[in-house]
């Protein structure tokens, strides 16, 4: 069952140099209890997609079109007040840099209690008790309730962020690269806590990352994004075994642990400017690109049931062959 459906979302930034189409026609859905991973290089529009779901886009950005169906209703039609009742209560979000994302002048205790105070009708005592038990649940000693963010390590701060996000028992948690500011061991510990909590509470989760290792570990399904568009969507096994988009193949190729042969092949070039894109957004860097790729945009084509690719030639022999070579 779909708990969240994003349909043809468009979020543009109106900058001095032109319109940046940070998210353009992005669609995906999240099923109850699953972990959906958004992957893609830096600047591919993952964060902007996530923020758009909650209506958190600031000027100069604007959501120009699309629907965000949650609980059968379109969040985009909500008034600001209705939307605030969703944020932090039914859909919570945690961010990349925990130190920057916590307010330096309030103790983490205060910050964890804050969403409960506005969303739940609890007494002060209950609020405080709940916050303390949450802290302990994420593995922070309860004396730390009165600590300021700068007094805690990055990993602790990120766990405090989780405690804050889970304060009102949300149905969906959106985690935007929660591990990239942490070192490897802290990362592993953090993921463990996160996944435990997710199971315990039956939450659904959108997990944003560039780390395909983490994807392999936790994802049920994967959405691969590039330059503001969805390149490929599939179950996690399909993505690793049978990728059908040159960009996905490129990503896998640039990773040491996933190539059968030892030859590493980073994708050449850089993500293009998101102003004035024509044709397939990936054609400038695609080694299989044909003339037509510069002219035509393919919304999505079905490879298999539940496996979609935005490549015109996802069935061509070249790509199937490359896919076999890189697939695990």
């Amino acid at each position, binding site marked *: 069952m779909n708990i969240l459906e994003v349909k043809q979302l468009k979020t543009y930034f109106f900058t001095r140099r032109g319109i940046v189409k940070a998210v353009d026609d992005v669609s995906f859905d999240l099923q109850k209890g699953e972990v959906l991973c958004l992957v893609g290089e830096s600047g591919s529009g993952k964060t902007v997609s996530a*923020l758009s779901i*909650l209506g*958190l886009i600031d000027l100069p950005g604007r959501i120009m079109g699309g629907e965000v169906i949650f609980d059968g209703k379109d969040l985009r039609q909500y008034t*600001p007040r209705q939307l*605030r*009742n*969703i*944020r*932090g*209560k039914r859909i*919570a*979000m945690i*961010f990349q*840099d925990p130190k*920057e*994302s*916590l*307010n*330096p*002048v*309030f103790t983490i205790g205060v910050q964890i209690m*804050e*969403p409960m105070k*506005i*969303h739940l009708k609890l007494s002060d005592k209950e609020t405080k008790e709940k916050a303390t038990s949450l802290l302990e649940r994420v593995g922070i000693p309860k004396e730390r309730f009165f600590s*300021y963010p*700068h007094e805690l390590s990055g990993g602790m701060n990120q766990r405090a*962020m989780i405690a*804050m996000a889970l304060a009102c028992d949300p149905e969906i948690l959106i985690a935007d690269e929660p591990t990239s500011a942490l070192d490897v061991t802290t990362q592993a510990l953090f993921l463990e806590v996160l996944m435990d909590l997710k199971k315990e509470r039956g939450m659904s989760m959108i997990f944003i990352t560039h780390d395909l290792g983490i994807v392999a570990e936790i994802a049920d399904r994967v959405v691969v994004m590039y330059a503001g568009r969805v390149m490929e969507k599939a179950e996690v096994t399909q993505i690793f075994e049978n990728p059908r988009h040159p960009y996905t193949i490129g990503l896998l190729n640039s990773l040491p642990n996933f190539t059968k042969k030892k030859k590493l092949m980073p994708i050449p070039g850089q993500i293009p400017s998101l102003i004035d894109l024509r044709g397939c957004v990936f054609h400038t860097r695609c080694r299989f690109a044909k003339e037509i790729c510069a002219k035509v945009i393919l919304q999505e084509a079905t490879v298999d049931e539940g496996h979609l690719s935005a490549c015109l030639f996802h069935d061509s022999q070249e790509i199937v062959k490359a896919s076999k070579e890189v697939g695990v």
Partner: protein
Amino acid sequence: MPGKKASMGEYIARRLFYSLIIAWGILTITFILLRLAPGSPADNYLANIAASGRARDIAQVQAAIDARYGLDKPLYLQYADYISNLLHGNLGWSLSTSLPVSELLSKHWIYSFELIFLSTVFAVLIGVSIGIYSAVKQRTKADYAVTVFSFMGISIPNFWLGIMLILIFSVKLGLFKTYYDTSLPLFSLENLKAMTLPVITLGSGMLAGYSRYVRSAALDNLRKDFVRTARAKGLPERTVILKHVFRNAMLPVITIIMLDMSGVVFGGAYLTEIIFGIPGLGRISFNAIFADDYAVVVAVTLIGAVVTLIFNLLADIAYTYLDPRVRYV
């Protein structure tokens, strides 16, 4: 945490000690300036007496004054006397009013205090609000208007503004008296009315400055990630701005407001008192200048410096209290 408190005390002690050194420097520089002055402080006074023919024997008066000022002693003893007198709260004798300077000051400081206090309240309340407002409305017409107005507020010479206010509201419209009525009890309603123009005169420049500081501090913080977190929690925009952004934006602003006291406020208050005839310390010093009454001028300058010193100390301490990240180094 207990460790924090201990180092806080230590920190304050260190700042206090440091302030004492500065205070000593202030006294010393003042002394040097006084000694560098051409002639003796009593010269003009004596000349006036001689002209009026009141004193029969000028030489006697001269000797008496020299003895009172200790001018007959060697320099290092004069210095020692000067410091020890000040430490005993003995600020000398006002020649023009025939009162001890300390008595004069204790009678008049309250007027300066009232003016500065009311102006600060006025400036902080309005300046901070429009600063936050224009940051939230960045790049709108309202924001532009605030920016231009604060530039004008900073640039308008406050003594001229005072005169213009008198010209418009007192002379032309007759809404206020042109002169400050000293017979009214302080902080009474009538007295507050009399303070209106002076407070606008002194406060508008301060207000403009504060609104600029606040605006830029608020803009800095509006861009921070924690604002996004606060919004993602579902907080209403009011709470996001007035709690999360405001607390952070006020940290640097409070320090700046305190440090502004000496530069902007004291000079401004001095002139405002003169224009409106408010009998505060500035006005006294002004009168003393034209009566060649050294002791009063020196005392007011010293008081200004000492109060500044106290404000600097308070600014330091306030900052460490308000910003949990500050370590006491």
